[in-house]
């Protein structure tokens, strides 16, 4: 992670760039396999055995088995791929979005009905104390 990007200071956002693409390839290709109904059935029946087919890191494997949606993004998961695990569980994009942002389903739904999360105060990560210009 040597090359800093001008989007690295956007808070709560995991841009699927070359860095994450290299880290998350196997994880995301596992998710891709869930486009097939027979694979969904196999994964549901024995998640651990199904994951053995893919070269996941221990942390990627843990995140999948524990349904740590945010954790998956941190180890290279791409939301368009990891959402397929959620579909397998009968969850929606909105359910997962609520969980990733750390609020209850009701709180998240109400936030969206009220116009969504404001961009005000959410453009930049806070500057750590002592590093202010």
């Amino acid at each position, binding site marked *: 992670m040597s090359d800093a990007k001008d989007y690295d200071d956007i808070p709560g956002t995991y841009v699927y760039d070359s860095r994450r693409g290299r880290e998350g390839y196997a994880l995301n290709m596992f998710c891709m396999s869930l486009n097939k109904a027979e694979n969904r059935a196999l994964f549901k029946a024995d998640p651990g055995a199904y994951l053995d087919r893919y070269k996941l890191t221990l942390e990627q494997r843990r995140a999948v088995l524990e349904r740590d949606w945010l954790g998956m993004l941190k180890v290279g998961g791409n939301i368009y791929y990891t959402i397929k695990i959620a579909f397998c569980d009968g969850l929606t*994009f909105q359910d997962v979005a609520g969980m990733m942002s750390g609020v209850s389903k009701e709180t998240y739904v109400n936030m969206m009905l009220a*116009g*969504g999360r404001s961009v005000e105060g959410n453009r930049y990560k806070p500057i750590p104390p002592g590093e202010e210009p």
Partner: protein
Amino acid sequence: MARIVAGIACSHVPAIGVAIDKGTTETDYWRPLFAGYEPAREWLAKLAPDVAIIVYNDHASALSLEIIPTFLIGVAAEFPIADEGFGPRPVPAVRGHPDLAWHLAESLILDEFDMTIANEMPVDHGLTVPLSVTCGRPAIWPFPVIPVCVNVVQYPPPTGVRCFKLGQAIARAVERFDQDLRVVIYGTGGMSHQLQGERAGLINRRFDTAFLDGLTRDPVALTKIPHTEYMREAGSEGVELVMWHVMRGALRTQVTEVYRHYHVPASNTAAALMILENEGSS
């Protein structure tokens, strides 16, 4: 001679497709969104185009990380409906237009746009939701469709400028086609939304409104928006708006905005539908 008569900008939220397929469009949650689609359906039925070019992104359906084409054109006679992880949408398969699609593929490549050509490809909600939004639930889709996929999943997507130029090249190619066809072009995706991370649910109505205004009046200035600005201001998935520049580039400089609908929320997303007509050509 074929010609492009109008452009349609349309968000392609999967939940909109689910609402249509499950018949829940009249609930309190969905009614305001779907009511705003009605005038567009009437307009499109009256226009009765011969073919539609739909610019969209595949969401890990036909295309995975295995091979990532930046621009792709589908030349098949028929495109089946993709299983995106919860079974295919119960909508008709999408008819293609191989004659025009192959003409576009050859013309675009010789015009220096290095298209990937797809002979077989299932299509996902990115294409079928805008079709459902604008055509309802017909037994067969009212016109054939040429899918044009833009990568927006693996960063970086093509720039807004490049997308606009692709649209211009599409318009040039359409005008060189020797059948008398009236063509509409869809730009899909957007508007502001973020599906991932702690910042999920971000919406920026001010950005979206300015984008819609600019699309009609000053589209070239709009193409200069850098990817980081889309992600910061309109959410990480708001960068899908680059696909609207393909549609706008395919239209003339002077267009008439004949319809606009904007609604928050559609699940996690600000959904819009806008219709632009090439002046005097419909």
